[in-house]
C-alpha cells in the first residue's frame, strides 16, 4: 500500500515538474503556427510564463488579414486533467462595430479529461451572455446567446442570423 502511495506521489511530482518546466511560450508559438493556415494570427503579444500557466498580454487578433480585435489578456492553464483558457477585455475592431457590440469582457473555455473531445465555453460582454459547446467528434459548434438590451435594440440584423428559441434565447449551430 505504501509503495502504491509512493508511486502516485512520484507520478504527481513528475507531472508537476514537467508542467512547471515545459516551455509554455514555445508551445504557444507552436499552437500559433497551427492557427496560421486558418488565417488566424495573434500578433504584438507579450507572453509571460507563470510556471503553471501562461499569460498572453495586449494581443491583436487578425483573421484573414483583417484586424479583428484587441485582446487585453489570455490566461492558459494546461493541467492535463483540466485545461482552461480565459480571455479578458476583448475589444472588436471598429469595422465590426456595426455588426456586434465591441466589448467582450470575459470568455472562458474549458476542457476536461472526462470529456476530452468536448470544449465548453462561456462569454460575457456588451452583447449579453453566451454559452458554447464544441464537439470535436461530431464536428459541430453550438452557441446559445441571451442577448442584452443593447444587442436586441441595435444589432437586430446580427440576431436575425441566429435562431430564436421558445425560451427567448438565440441559438446558432455550425458544422465544420
Amino acid at each position: 500500500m505504501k509503495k502504491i502511495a509512493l508511486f502516485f506521489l512520484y507520478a504527481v511530482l513528475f507531472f508537476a515538474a514537467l508542467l512547471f518546466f515545459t516551455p509554455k511560450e514555445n508551445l504557444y508559438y507552436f499552437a500559433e503556427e497551427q492557427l496560421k493556415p486558418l488565417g488566424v494570427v495573434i500578433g504584438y503579444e507579450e507572453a509571460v510564463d507563470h510556471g503553471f500557466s501562461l499569460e498572453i498580454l495586449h494581443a491583436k487578433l487578425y483573421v484573414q488579414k483583417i484586424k479583428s480585435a484587441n485582446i487585453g489578456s489570455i490566461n492558459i492553464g494546461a493541467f492535463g486533467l483540466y485545461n482552461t483558457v480565459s480571455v479578458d477585455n476583448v475589444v472588436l475592431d471598429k469595422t465590426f462595430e456595426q455588426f456586434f457590440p465591441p466589448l467582450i469582457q470575459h470568455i472562458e473555455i474549458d476542457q476536461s479529461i472526462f470529456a476530452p473531445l468536448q470544449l465548453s465555453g462561456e462569454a460575457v460582454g456588451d452583447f449579453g451572455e453566451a454559452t458554447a459547446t464544441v464537439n470535436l467528434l461530431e464536428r459541430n459548434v453550438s452557441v446559445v446567446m441571451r442577448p442584452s438590451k443593447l444587442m436586441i435594440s441595435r444589432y437586430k440584423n446580427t440576431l436575425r442570423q441566429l435562431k430564436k428559441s421558445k425560451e427567448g434565447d438565440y441559438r446558432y449551430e455550425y458544422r465544420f
Partner: protein
Amino acid sequence: MNIDFNSSLVRFIRNVLIIILVAKAISLAMLWYFQSEGVHYHAKGSKMPEYKRYSVQNIIKPTHKPDPKSAVGPTSEEAKELAAYGPNISNMLLKALFKRKNGGLVIIALKAKPNDSEVIGIGEVFQGYTLTKILENGTIFDKNGQTFSLYFSEEQQKDRYTSKAGAAQSDDEGIKQVAKSDIVSYAKDVKRIWKDIGIVEVKKNGKITGFKVTRIKPNTPFAQLGLRQGDIIIKANNKPMTSYKDALGIYKGIDKLQALELIVLRNNQETEIIYEIY
C-alpha cells in the same frame, strides 16, 4: 560525517531529484524542438519594421544574402515587363490630367520610361490606346472595342494638387455620378446597406473569387447604381476581390475615394461600371 544512503528520506530525496532532472531534460528537448518565435502579422507596405524576436536561434541563423541575379529594382522589372508583354494599360503611368467640360488633356508615360511623357487629348492615341474620357482621378481608354481605365496611383493621389476649372460634368457614356453624402451616410450606417442590398461571397475551390449581388431593394440609391441581381463583383479599382479584407479595404476607404471602378461578371461577361464621386 557519515551519510546513510539507504535511509528512506535520502532515497526519497534522490528519487525526487531524478524526477526533476528527467522532467527538465524533457522540457529542454521540447525547448529545442518547438519554435522560439511566434507568428506575427506584417501588413504589406507597412512602414513599421517586421517584428523579430531576440533569440539564440535567430542569432545563429545565417543571415539572408540577397541573390545578385534577383536584385532587380522596380525600374528594371518594369522594363522587363515592357519587353515581355509590350505596352499595355498596366505598364502605363498617368502623371497628370487637366479636365474641362468638353474634353481636357492628360500627361502619360510608360512606367519603364517615366521621363518620356506625352500629352494627349480626347480621341488621341497613346501606344495603341485611344483616350475616350477624362475622370476626376483617372482616364478611360479604348482599344479594339474594349474599355480600359487608368488611375493615379495611391502615392500620387496623396500628393495630388487639384484645381477645379468649370462646372462638374454631367453623367454620360455609362459613367455614373454618386454623391459623397450618400456614400458617407451608408458607410456610417451599415444596417442600411444590408437592408438595401444583399451580397454573398462566391467561392471556387475553397477560395473567394468575388462577391455576388443577391438582391437590390427597388427605389434605393443602390437600385440606381447600375448593379443587377446576380452580378458578381470581381474587381474594385483594379483590385481583385478575393477576400473579405479586400472588400473591407474598399468599404473602409470609400469616403476618401474620388472614383470607383467595379468590374462585374454579368451573364459570364465582364462589365465595367465606373462611378464618379462628387
